[in-house]
């Protein structure tokens, strides 16, 4: 901008350029020469330069204003508690993120270990398949639950033809929704009781109706209704799933909700 200036005849130097000249900020040699030459013969521009110089000086000497009040700090102002830190889910945001990731990894590990340890392949009775159906229907809210029910139906059909070994897809298909179905398991048990007109509890029925001494460890799905052994796995998975869910809400949903509310 400054270097582009060309002084024509009878044309004054713009104030902006004079201001730059005042600061020694005009680097272009030719422009500098032209400004000097113009100033030597133009009284108006000398006056403008003088006024700009006075202006800069005045700015540097401007008095400081009177303060409307004292700004001395009171003890309350310097207390750390005075700093509003925001709600807990904002304060512990980084820790919450890590905890969510850790809990999710743990859940996957537990699920993986469960599947690996409790390889399916044992024989299953018709009642167990029916239990699965009942459970699948009860937890039917989830699509995964539906998938389990479908798989169970298929399994039931297969079972009707023969009491031969159950195909492995059933427990595998049923395993993933287990955590989600976890909280609903009492309902599932209830549904099961309604379905079967037996006075026995869900667990004991599953136990009693078993026509072969099936290895419990080989029955990940039926374990929902069992009282010991793999039940611990179900419980751990359900608890972990709840923890992950809660952490997800605390880490992502709550801060967003708060932001939206302003």
């Amino acid at each position: 901008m400054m270097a582009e200036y060309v002084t024509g005849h009878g044309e004054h130097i713009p104030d902006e350029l004079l201001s730059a000249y005042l600061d020694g900020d005009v680097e272009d040699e030719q422009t500098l020469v032209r400004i000097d030459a113009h100033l030597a013969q133009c009284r108006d521009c000398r006056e403008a330069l003088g006024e700009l110089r006075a202006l800069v000086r005045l700015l540097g000497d401007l008095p400081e204003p009177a303060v409307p009040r004292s700004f001395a700090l009171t003890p309350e102002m310097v207390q750390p508690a005075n700093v509003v830190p925001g709600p807990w889910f904002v304060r512990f945001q980084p820790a919450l993120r890590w905890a969510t990731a850790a809990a999710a990894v743990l859940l996957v590990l537990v699920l993986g270990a469960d599947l690996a340890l409790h390889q399916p392949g044992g024989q299953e009775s018709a009642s167990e398949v029916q239990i699965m159906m009942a459970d699948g229907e009860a937890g039917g809210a989830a699509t995964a639950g539906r998938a389990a029910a479908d798989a169970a139906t298929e399994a039931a059909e297969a079972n009707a033809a023969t009491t031969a070994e159950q195909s492995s897809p059933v427990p595998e298909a049923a395993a993933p929704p287990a955590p989600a179905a976890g909280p609903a398991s009492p309902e599932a048990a209830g549904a099961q009781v309604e379905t079967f007109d037996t006075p026995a509890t869900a667990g004991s029925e599953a136990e009693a109706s078993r026509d072969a001494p099936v290895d419990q460890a080989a029955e990940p799905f039926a374990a929902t209704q069992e009282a010991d052994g793999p039940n611990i796995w179900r419980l751990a998975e359900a608890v972990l799933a709840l923890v992950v869910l809660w952490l997800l809400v605390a880490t992502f949903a709550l801060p967003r909700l708060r932001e939206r509310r302003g």
Partner: protein
Amino acid sequence: MIAAARNGDLAAFNTLVARHERAVYGVALRLLRDPEAAEDVTQDTFVRAHAALDQFVGGSARSWLLRIATNRSYDVLRYRRRRPAESLDARPVEEEPVWAVETPPADPEAFATRQELSARLEAALAMLTDDQRVAVVLYDVQGYSYEEIANLTGATLGTVKSRIHRGRARLRELLRQDPRSRELLGEASRQHSGDESA
């Protein structure tokens, strides 16, 4: 004094506040043109300074405080720019702040002239754009370098220079629009060149 304040002596810190509050409030008021907002920034500056005493590595306490105040004021300006409607509503009617609190020097007449011109210059400063005013106040009033202003405002060096020069040109134009201001400016200019030749 800073060492005492660092050890938890609030009275020592408040001595620092009393010494620099005018300068801090002054820069906030010039940048924001809003006494209420300037008050908030000033108080906030001292609270922050107190909390960050450990980070003060030495040097001038005044420039350290002014830097905090300038940064906070610029934050407010940026915030206003993002929400212009809201800030216009919030901005109080321009009231004339009390600027001059100097002790009169030996030459009362020259002092009175300068007082009057200073008040008019403040009014003209308030009429610049935010960008020009920030650049001129920081450069000419506070004595910041081009680089410091560029860092603070996120503008290029060329833009900063251009804002300063345009701002000054506009100030002169504004002062010359009023006959009395024009007369006072001419007087100050002659007085200044008189000082130099002497």
